[in-house]
């Protein structure tokens, strides 16, 4: 039996004005378990708290009911008071007789009556309270960053600079991501490589960072602070530790006609290749599907010319296991396929290209060495049409496009148009737009400059059809402002294709039990207040995997994610919330209902041995809650058909006791 003390606060006249506090204290005295009851002007003051501590000692109290303001206000205060008095902090319940009683009711008898009932409910609950201790778990002081684009690079650098080891897993042979493919960046027009490649070098040289390039995450187990991750290092048939990146093998390889992914397939690369000059790690990789040595056992030229002896045709995929305290997802984006938008003739003409392809065409390291030349005949285009929102903002074409705005296209199109007019003033540039969306620092000014200073023609309307005919692309479009249809014979058409999350994101989300939206973007723990955390504890989000983002936004989110990771890794131990679910194994029937509703993946099933009454043993499948992962929502408790699952601090019998007390 509990020995409960009731402490009724006046809160000056805030409570005492409409509640007869003495009557409340008196009425609660006769409740079961109550051995002491009193009132005081300001229970939260030092004197009030001292009064509580003294009362606990004098009366050997085991539980406290404080009739005062909202628990959202002073629950923590009174829990500390209880701890000072030598009680478990969770033996305290608050009856909210201010916000939910004295402040909303005007008449003293009514307020008093309700305060008594609220007090009774709290007493009924405390009678069933049990001491709770938050669980503790150790923290592995190492972070994993999945994805080596600008988001992953920035997050890794920030975490590593704080002194924690970081591993980057990148599926491509080099880090750098999409930003490495870009030419200039809006709105300042600094060159992407000039600002990115130094960061890539920093990553390579940072003693706290390891890069697993040409690798994937194969398995994730564990929970916040204690993730066990298996990384698959794909065979690249080149020993990374020996390769010097000299490129002799690349020059000698006879299989030269493979589409170069880095240049969006607009030129070719050999079967053994280094994606680009500033690649990190600068190590060659053999494309197993293109190499005749690997396919037929004939050739071996690269091995012969390699002075470092780095070529290894027998290399196998390698699996590495490592422990991490935190995981950052930075899997980024891709442009969507233009296959289903052939009214724009992307499949019919080489001169209809996506904006990312245009980036490569204007990049000094690209297939045309930075000269703007048509892919079909290498001629300089004199009339260029840009089409915005291709595949973005599509409602009824789920299999074709995306319902959301891709966010970055308005700005990069303005950049492309402006740069084209700047470099080639003899080129006529027309941009078709639905809306020009430029909410960002110096963004609208940038767009207006493209129009006013560089003479880019912006037409409010949409291209309806593109017909390649001979050397030209016949563009048919609407001009809504002038209410006319336009016909332009263009030399080059650039499509601002929608962007989508990388395909690797969904299987990864499943491994991490991190939630995603219908578009496969990762969901944040709270859209406003926890934008870089996944609802799954210990998993953080960086960059476009969470939603379309430009570079400045990505970098700031990457930094934010890093600071969250640092905050976690700084701790030696994680203190959990003790109000979490727990399963009564004797009642659990192993049905998995709780596992399915848990938003955090905190529940797993174990095969456990039980002693039966007849002294035999039996193996049964029972639910097990991971205390470090459970957030205490209670969804499982209701899903459980056998009543085995309960929530500490808000147990079934406690809530029922409150209901009973109120309904008495």
């Amino acid at each position, binding site marked *: 039996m509990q020995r409960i003390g009731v402490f009724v606060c006046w809160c000056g006249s805030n409570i005492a004005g409409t509640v007869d506090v003495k009557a409340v204290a008196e009425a609660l005295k006769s409740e079961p378990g109550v051995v002491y009851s009193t009132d005081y002007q300001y229970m939260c003051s030092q004197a009030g708290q001292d009064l509580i501590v003294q009362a606990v000692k004098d009366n050997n109290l085991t539980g406290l009911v404080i009739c005062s303001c909202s628990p959202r206000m002073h629950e923590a205060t009174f829990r500390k008071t209880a701890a000072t008095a030598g009680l478990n902090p969770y033996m305290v319940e608050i009856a909210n007789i201010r916000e939910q009683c004295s402040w909303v009711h005007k008449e003293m008898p009514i307020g008093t009556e309700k305060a008594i009932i609220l007090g009774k409910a709290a007493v009924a609950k405390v009678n069933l309270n049990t001491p709770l201790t938050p669980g503790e778990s150790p923290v592995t002081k190492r972070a994993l960053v999945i994805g080596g684009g600008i988001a992953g690079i920035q997050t890794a650098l920030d975490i590593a600079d704080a002194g924690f080891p970081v591993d980057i897993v990148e599926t491509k042979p080099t880090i750098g991501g999409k930003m490495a493919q870009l030419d200039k960046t809006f709105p300042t027009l600094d060159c992407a490589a000039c600002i990115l490649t130094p960061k890539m070098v920093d990553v390579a040289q940072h003693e706290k960072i390891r890069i697993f390039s040409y690798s994937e995450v194969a398995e994730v187990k564990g929970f916040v602070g204690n993730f066990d991750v298996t990384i698959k290092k794909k065979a690249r048939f080149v020993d990374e530790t020996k390769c010097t990146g000299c490129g002799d093998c690349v020059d000698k390889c006879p299989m030269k006609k493979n589409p170069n992914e880095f240049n969006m397939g607009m030129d070719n690369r050999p079967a053994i290749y280094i994606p680009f000059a500033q690649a990190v790690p600068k190590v060659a990789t053999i494309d197993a599907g293109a190499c005749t040595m690997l396919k037929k056992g004939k050739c071996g030229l690269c091995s012969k010319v390699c002075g470092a002896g780095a070529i290894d045709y027998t290399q196998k995929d390698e699996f590495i296991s490592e422990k991490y305290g935190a995981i950052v997802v930075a899997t980024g984006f891709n442009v969507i396929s233009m*296959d*289903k*938008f*052939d*009214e724009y*003739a992307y*499949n*019919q003409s080489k001169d209809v290209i996506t904006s990312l392809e245009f980036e490569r065409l204007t990049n000094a390291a690209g297939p045309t060495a930075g000269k703007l030349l048509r892919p079909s005949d290498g001629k300089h285009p004199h009339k260029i049409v840009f089409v915005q929102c291709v595949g973005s903002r599509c409602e009824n074409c789920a299999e074709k496009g995306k319902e959301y705005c891709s966010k970055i296209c308005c700005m990069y199109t303005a950049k492309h148009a402006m740069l084209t007019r700047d470099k080639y003033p003899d080129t006529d540039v027309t941009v078709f737009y639905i809306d020009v969306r430029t909410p960002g620092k110096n963004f609208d000014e940038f767009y207006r400059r493209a129009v006013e200073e560089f003479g880019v023609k912006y037409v409010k309307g949409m291209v309806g*059809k*593109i*017909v*390649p*005919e*001979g050397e030209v692309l*016949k563009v048919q479009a609407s001009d809504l402002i002038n209410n006319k249809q336009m016909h332009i014979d263009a030399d080059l058409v650039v499509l601002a294709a929608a962007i989508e999350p990388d395909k690797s994101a969904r299987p990864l989300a499943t491994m991490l039990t991190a939630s995603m939206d219908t578009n496969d973007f990762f969901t944040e723990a709270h859209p406003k207040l926890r934008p870089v955390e996944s609802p799954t504890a210990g998993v953080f989000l960086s960059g476009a995997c969470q939603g379309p983002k430009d570079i400045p936004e990505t970098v700031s989110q990457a930094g934010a994610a890093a600071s969250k990771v640092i905050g976690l890794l700084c701790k030696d131990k994680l203190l959990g919330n003790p109000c979490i679910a727990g399963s009564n194994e004797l009642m659990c029937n192993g049905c998995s209902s709780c596992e399915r509703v848990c938003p955090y993946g905190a529940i797993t099933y174990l095969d456990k041995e039980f002693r039966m009454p007849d002294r035999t043993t039996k193996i049964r499948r029972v639910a097990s809650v991971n205390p470090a992962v459970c957030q205490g929502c209670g969804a499982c408790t209701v899903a459980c058909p056998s009543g085995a699952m309960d929530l500490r601090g808000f147990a079934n019998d406690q809530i029922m006791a409150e209901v009973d007390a109120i309904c008495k």
Partner: protein
Amino acid sequence: MKMSYFPGCTLKNKAKDLDEYARKSAEVLGITLEEIENWQCCGGVFTTSKDEIATKLSSVRALMDAKSKEQPLVSVCSACHNVIKQTNHAMRNDSEFADKVNRYMSENEPYNGETEVLHYLEMLRDKVGFDSLKEKVVNPLKGKKIGAYYGCLLLRPNSVMAMDDPENPTIMEELIKAIGATPVVYGMRNECCGGYVSVESPELAKKKSDAVVANAKAQGADMIITACPLCRYNLIKNGADIPVVYFTELLAQALGVKEAENE
């Protein structure tokens, strides 16, 4: 294999060739086309309006007939195919419409879009297969550069027709390859020829037809094939200076049933 067949008005009059070659070629490929008895004109265009019932009944009758024989319903003319497929789709998916139609028809068993509606081209691709068609070709049309003209009725609306990619179709190109010729892909192949508006404003129809032919020629076609009598009429009437023929004619030629006819 037997299939129900809806020839349509034009195939019985101005486009007899389209009909005849279609049947003969199908025979060679092992499919007998059984003409629906007492079929009525499809109406030429499908009225999208939700409150039109009567204009869709002839299609429903043909569909019910095919259902009773448990056969797919094949048509060659793009217009007939479009009307029948859209009607069937409405019978399957628009319960209010289907209910009204079924009450009107007052047959023992209501019709709810059970029949499989196939265009002749779909029959070739999905029931015969272009590979086996290729094996039956006795007279490959080598060296011919052919532009397939789809027009609008064959492909749109794609949510209903679901025959091919509406913006980048390949079915006729595959046929052209199967009969030994070279397909020419050109952008205007799925744009309108001017259709029925040629009675309302012949100048508009001429502009549209000219653009189609010009584009096909510019991309290297020396011949255009089509499945639609109206497309063919508009292109020819507006002065196409390359041959515009029904696809079945070339098919019959390749399969050797047209020559036999001539000899």
